[in-house]
Each structure stands twice: as C-alpha cells, then as structure tokens.
C-alpha cells in the first residue's frame, strides 16, 4: 500500500548549494551596502535584497516552484493581506498632518 509521491520532485544537491551560496552572497551584499550613503534608497535596496532572499527560500527550499496552484495562491494571499494591514494603517499615519 505504499502510495508513491506522484509529483515529488527531487532537486539536486547542486541546486541547493547554489541557492545557499546566493543567499549568503545577498547577506554580505546587503550588509556592505548598508554602510554606503544611498539616501532614501537605503531602505529600498535593503528590502529588495530581502525580498529576493525570501523568494529564493520559498521557491527552492520550500518547494513552491513544484507546488500546486493552491499553495501559490496561499503564499500570494498571505503577502497581500500583510500589504492590506501595512498600507491601510499607513494611510492614516502619512496623512496625519496634511
């Protein structure tokens, strides 16, 4: 009665190693960039790099790449709801003194 995992994808060790190295590279990069004066872009760059790292972890380590549409929808939904919370809360705070 062993039900084989029909759509199990086994990624190669090489893939995971590459992802790990990319993640570490991003970490070094974001730390190094933090010491440079980029003005308002400091935040943008830091968050962009973090988002890339998140994507790498989600896609490869969490197998979202191989996952069902439903799983992808769940991920996108979570990020959207976080967005609702942040954006609507901020509409108040950024327009307080207008």
């Amino acid at each position, binding site marked *: 009665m062993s039900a084989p995992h029909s759509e199990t994808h086994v990624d190669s060790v090489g893939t995971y190693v590459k992802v790990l190295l990319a993640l570490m590279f991003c970490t070094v990069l974001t730390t190094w960039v933090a010491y440079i004066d980029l003005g308002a872009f400091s935040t943008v760059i830091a968050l962009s790099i973090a988002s890339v790292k998140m994507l790498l972890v989600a896609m490869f380590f969490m197998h979202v790449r191989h996952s069902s549409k*439903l799983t992808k929808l769940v991920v996108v*939904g979570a990020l959207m*709801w976080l967005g*609702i*919370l942040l954006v*609507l*809360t901020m*509409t*108040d*705070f950024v*327009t*307080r003194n*207008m």
Partner: protein
Amino acid sequence: MDTAVAQERENYLNASHGLKSWLLTKDHKRIGLLYLFTITLFFFIGGAFATLIRIELLSPQGNMVSSETYNKLFTMHAVAMIFFFMIPSIPAVLGNFFLPIMIGARDLAFPKLNLLSWYLLVIGGAFSLFAMIAGGVDTGWTFYTPYSTTYSNSWVIATALGIFIAGFSSILTGLNFIVTVHRMRAPGMTWFRMPLFVWANYATSLIQVLGTPVLAVTIVLLFVERVFQLGIFDPARGGDPVLFQHLFWFYSHPAVYIMVLPGMGVISEIISTFSRKTVFGYAFIAFSSVAIAVLGFLVWGHHMFVSGQSLYASMVFSFLSYFVAIPSAIKVFNWTATLYKGSISYQTPMLYAFGFIGLFTIGGLTGLFLAALGMDIHVTDTYFVVAHFHYIMVGGTMMAYLGGMHFWWPKMTGRMYPEGWAKLSSLVIFLGFNLTFFPQFILGYLGMPRRYHLYPAEFQVLNVMSTAGASILAVGYAMPMIYFIWSLKYGKVAPMNPWGATGLEWRTASPPPVHNFEQTPIVTHEAYDYTSVPAEEIEVV
C-alpha cells in the same frame, strides 16, 4: 422505554460511553456538542451581566452599582458574549457538526486539532472566568490603550490571555475547515455543488485565519507593555495609542463577519428547505460570502473616526465601507427571490429565518448610517451604535443560530422538538428583541452615550421599555433551553429527513453513525435539487 427499539442502531451518541469517551473524542459531532455546552455556559454568564446592566439602567441615578462596577459589567458582558459565545457559536457548534457531513466526509481533516481547539476555548474561558471572579476587568471589550496598559487596575492580563488562547481555538478551527473543504469533499461534490452553509463557513474560516493572528499579536504587545514595560503604544515615549486601535480593529471589524457570515449560511439552508425551491442566485450568494470576507478587511477605520485618525484615512475607510453593503444586499435580495412562488411552510426554523432577514437588514442599514462620517460624529459612542450591533449580532446571528439549532436538532439528537412551543418562543424572542433594542436607536439618536450608568431623567421611559423587552427576551431564550432538554427524552423520534431537505446530512440516519455515512456518498446533483430526494426518505412531520 417505548422507543428502545429505535435507539438500538449504533450512532455517534451511543457508540461509546463515559465521560472519558467524550473528553477524548475525535468525532467532530461530539466535539460540536462539547462546544454547545461550553458556549451555552458563556451565554448564561454574559446574560447574567446583561441582566445587571439592564436593571441598573432602570433608573437614571445609577444607584445600584458604582461606576467602576458598571464599567466591569459591560466589559465582561461583551467579553463573554463576543469571544466565548458569538464567535464560536455557529461555526464551532453547527459547522463542526455539519460541515463534514454536508460535503460527504467522514470527519474534519484534523480531528485531534479539532479537539485541541475545544480545549483551547475551555482554557481561554477559564482564564477569563478567573478574571471575572477575581474582581473583573473594566477596560471595555476593546482594551484601548493607554488605559489598558497603564491605568486600569483590573484583571486586564488574565482576560487578555484568555482571549488570546481562545483566539487560537478560532484560528485552528478555521484552518481545519479550509483544509477539509479543499481536500475532503466526497466524489462528485464539486465546489458549486456545496451547500451555501459550507461556503459561508469557508469564507468565515478565511477571516479567522487571516484576521485572528493580528488580534493575538496585539494582545501580546499589550501584554509586554503592561508586564515588561516595553512601550509600543506608550504616548510618554512617543508611541501612538491609535496604532493599537488600528491593529485591534483590523481583526475586530472582520470579526463581526466571523459572527454573521455563518448565520447567513444557515439562513440560505432554511429558506431553501422551507420554500422547497432551489436557492435563487446560488453562485451569487456563494461568492458574496467570499466577497464579504475580503472586503471586510478594508473598512476597519470606520471605528476610528473620532480617534485622531487622519481625516483622509477616515474618508477612505468611509468610502470603502459602502462596498460591504453590496454583497450583503445581494444575499438579502436573493433570499427574497427564493421565496417568490415557493411553497412556503412556516415551521420554526423558517420563522427564525424571517426574523434574521428583517433584523439583519435594519442592522446593516444602520451600519451604513454609521459609516457616513458626518452622521457618525453625531451618534458615535451612543446607544445608536449599541442598537446597530445588537440588531446584527442578537437580531441576526442569534436568530440564525437558534434557527439552525431547530433545523438540525432532529439530526443531532434523533428527536423532534415540540413545534408549538418552538413557534411561540420564536415569536416571544422576536418581540422581546425589538422592544429591547429599538428604543436604543432613539436613545442614541437623542444623545444618550453608551457605557455610562447615569443618564438624564428624560431618557428613563425608553430605558424602562428596553429593560422590559430584555425580560421578555430572557423568557424567550429560556423556553428553547427547556424544551430542547425535554425533547431528548420525550420528543418524537426524528426520521431521517423530517423537512424533506436536500443536503447530504439528511441522507444519513438521525443521529448519524460514527463515521457519518454507511458508505461514502457519491454526489450527482446540484445543491438544493429537490427532485434528487427519494420520496421514500422524506417523512415530513
């Protein structure tokens, strides 16, 4: 004794015996009943506080309890009623019991988690009960900072922890339902064949999963501020108490839909069954549930018009609030259209459904008044608001809950309730409800603020009316309590399908066997297809 023969068939109630078989059960039906006992207890506790509030308000001088005690009374009334009764009510009792059966599953996807959810509610309830007995809590159910973090000397932490724990009960129930609906449907049970009660609970679960964690973290932040002096909301350190309100209402506005959406699901079942017609606009009603769940997350700032929130944000939230009215109205119109040319029978569940439609409409429309900035500034924090949400929660959800309890009681227990008494009680409840809460609209419009026990003498007549109505309401609620219990022993034995309804729950025995069906049903019909019900299975009583 005379019914011993009928009782011999094995069902979920008699399959095992003893307290342990209940406290360790993984059967969703038994867990539903455990919830039923628990929330009924909290309904009585909340009701006791309400009684004291109404007695106090008989006279304008506020001479029964002190102001501090009065603060505690309305806080504990709301905490018990909202977090430990209304929110778990329909999903955790009726949803737990019927959602798996209605989609043809043997159980929820995670039965142990389901049992854990019940224990969490009990533990959370115990914390809150402890707080109530030890001296009470006086912050209002909204726990606004900085009063709750800095000044209140009451049992804030115990109560908040209780709500935090109960919140996880709600989250895990929602999670369980979503997975169940996605993964456990019987063969042929496509999404658009699911009963609308299932759709409504699915949408509710989405809110529970997406919203409740924010309440939880808000409580954590309140906790660390009160206990460890971290200062997230502390104005003395530049913190902003309005941020607390944002986080709180991010959950608590959607929470009002946690309370009302499952009720809407019940109403769809009842309306269809007792007009013997397929629901008009099935897909519209199904999608409107999901639309309400989503839109409900975009409007929370309408609770904060006078909080110091920016005017621009208030305008955005006011504008967005009107969109919620659309899916709500779609439901009401479709239910009405379902009735058109139906063969309507006025059984008790149907009476409750009528009550729901009328009262929910009044409650929802007054919500639109409140969402209009100018109007709200006149009536915010008055009895108008109190009347608004009681029309929805007591007039709407409570009616739906009772309607659902009557509708499914034969299935849950295998016994019929006494129809005459039930009809009478539904009328008493309807009258008592309106006498209690309609005067509050007027009081609020005239300017009586909520949360005070002293009031100008000219408001006394309306307040006495309200208290009189509350007494009638109490009688109305007592009646089903008595005849439900009575029916367990003396009620007529219920047939498989006493209403001639279409759902899968009516295609299995009353009460159902342990795994719901003798064999997994295969679904070949749309929901509410009355031609699909084999005539020999209907025994209308």
